[in-house]
């Protein structure tokens, strides 16, 4: 997502763009990180995912302020929700992933080393997921949809394209091609006890559907057919999001943040291992570093940070090196590699316990 956004920053040169792109993609696809991702594990909490995302965004010398980071994450989340929700078949979430990877490969087509890394990941995905049944894919999709539940942030590009309503809900078309393997609705066939067809009746189901052309390819190279997951910004578009007004379904959202998170300890361990594979780039003294502002002016960005509704703020995990030695040596080593990020809500005084630090945010 932010790879697509970055392409549009006019003030950057092509060289800058390429460099930042390469850095981020190299970090994302490094072996250690991918190994951790491929291990069977529970769905991450929203906190955890946002933390990983933040870390990835800082894998190059590009920097974003809190407000721009929030906006980028909102965009990414809503775009991904859209893609998962609108998949014609559950198995198509794999095709969406392949569309993402195809686009990434196109960005780095001149760098054979990184290209290899991405291809390697591609192969791993094919190995791991191609043999899953439709029912198993549906379970994955249903689990992902639980993660995205109750998110209705309005995204300008979606509103303009009429794929999202003004209440933040996505438009679900009742026309177009049916998924591969599904028949166009409208036919009843009845059989006698010998299995011979004895009656055929047509009915109107209400929609306006047609047969699909062909199936998308699940190979390393191929026509995916599905458009979900391709570059939303191929035509120049504004990058705006709107916080919805007081949402009636916030009860469940706030509940998630307030309840003690039993997942915390296990998840932190996963996170720590995951982060261990993500190298942070620190801008040298001589280099200015690049800042990405997703708003039209710096003032607008500041204003957005101040006026973001409380219930929609992301509680990012701030993992800092502690004074006491952690019992887990591995964890301590990984923590030592982390850069201290300059988040406004940083707390320096209390909390030796990682869990306590999370809850303070």
């Amino acid at each position, binding site marked *: 997502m932010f790879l697509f956004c970055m392409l549009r920053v006019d003030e950057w040169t092509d060289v800058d763009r390429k460099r930042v792109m390469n850095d981020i993609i190299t970090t994302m696809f490094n072996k250690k990180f991918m190994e951790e991702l491929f291990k069977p594990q529970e769905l991450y909490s929203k906190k955890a995912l946002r933390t990983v995302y933040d870390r990835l965004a800082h894998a190059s010398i590009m920097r974003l302020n809190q407000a721009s980071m929030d906006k980028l994450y909102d965009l990414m989340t809503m775009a991904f929700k859209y893609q998962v929700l609108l998949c014609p078949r559950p198995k198509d979430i794999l095709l969406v992933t392949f569309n993402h990877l195809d686009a990434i490969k196109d960005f780095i087509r001149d760098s054979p080393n990184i290209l290899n890394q991405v291809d390697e990941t591609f192969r791993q995905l094919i190995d791991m997921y191609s043999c899953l049944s439709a029912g198993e894919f549906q379970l994955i999709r249903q689990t992902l949809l639980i993660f995205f539940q*109750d998110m209705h942030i309005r995204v300008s590009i979606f509103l303009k394209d009429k794929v999202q309503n003004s209440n933040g809900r996505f438009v679900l078309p*009742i026309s177009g091609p049916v998924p591969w393997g599904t028949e166009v609705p*409208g036919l009843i066939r*009845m059989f006698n006890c010998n299995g011979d067809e004895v009656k055929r009746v047509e009915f109107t*189901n*209400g929609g306006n559907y047609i047969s699909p052309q062909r199936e998308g390819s699940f190979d390393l190279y191929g026509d995916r057919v599905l458009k979900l997951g391709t570059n939303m910004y191929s035509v120049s578009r504004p990058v705006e999001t709107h916080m919805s007004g007081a949402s009636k379904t916030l009860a469940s959202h706030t509940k998630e943040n307030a309840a003690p998170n039993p997942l915390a300890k296990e998840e932190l361990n996963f996170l720590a291992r995951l982060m261990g594979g993500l190298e942070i780039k620190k801008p040298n003294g001589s280099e200015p570093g690049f800042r990405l502002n997703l708003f039209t002016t710096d003032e607008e960005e500041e204003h957005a940070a101040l006026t973001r509704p409380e219930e929609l703020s992301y509680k990012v995990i701030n993992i800092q090196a502690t004074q006491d030695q952690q019992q887990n040596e591995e964890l301590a080593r990984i923590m030592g590699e982390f850069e201290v990020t300059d988040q406004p809500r940083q707390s320096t005084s209390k909390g030796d316990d990682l869990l306590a630090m999370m809850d303070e945010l």
Partner: protein
Amino acid sequence: MSSPCDARALTTRCAVSMAAGDTGMYRKERSVPLKSSSSALYNNLSVLPLRDKQLTYFAAVHGSTVSLASASADGLSVSHRQLQAKEGGLAVSASIVTQASWCVLPSRVLLVLTSQKGIQMYESDGSIMVYWHALDVLEPPSAQAVFARGIAAASGRFICVGTSSGLVLVFDIPSKGTNITLSEVLQEHHDSITDIASEVGENPDGAADLVTADDSGALCVWRSKEEFSLLTKISAFGWTCSSVKLWNGVIAAGYGNGQIRLYEATSGALRATVSAHARWIYALDLAPLTGKLLSGAEDSYVQIWKLSRSPDTGDIEIEHCHSECVTDTQLCGARFCDPEGNSFAATGYDLSEIVRYGQV
């Protein structure tokens, strides 16, 4: 309810329905709000009509919570309750609820919740938990998901619950009290159970009592006396069977490719195929007094059908009665609200209400 606007809307709808060949007409009624939105899970709506109290109970699942709503007949007065999934021994992860369903037995009604950790049974209003059954934890933990799913009352004395490994657990339910025991485990499925249905119509001796469905699309048909015995197996054809119903010896099954299939329960013979929906079917329900069938799917549609048996040939017939589109909603639950099928309710992913329709 008789303002000029309503009359006009009704007339327009009548004209459209008649043009489309509808034989039954329904009109939208007041929705019932939910405390949390519904999750995208199969058969994610359960309804318990309480005729003597003139109330209807609704239940829908969201994550690790079940939202219960109790509504008056006109839908104006609604009270709420929320139930949580039980964590289980070591609270290392929050448990997601997969299904909530009322089981009506002759002497009592229980509300059953299935989750990643096990099975909870409550009194029908959700006030007291009367039984908890923990699922076996896999050692060592594998990549396979573990959960219970698929709930049905059977033969007037059992509650059957499915698991992700394909087992069907049969619980013996006493007429009152908490002395519920696991009496049998049925092992015929190789894939996760999706839904279970018991015979809701006429049941002559020797006929099928129960049908169980799984992720691969295979169906098992059972008869119960003291124990359950397998009558027949219906092979999968490549698509998940997400919802199943059994009525007068007819099995109605809804599949991931949008198709509804009808089978003869005792022989397993295929009697009808319906290309009913453009997306995955999430729910089926049957009104036992009339043979009306409803189907709800991700394509936003509830379709109403009528099942019958030809008296001359004995052939099973199905006809289409009505379509209802819940705009921009992927439906995950749909049920009739009365045994004649004069009214129905539905909910969908991210929807914080239950939409209701009544026959005109």
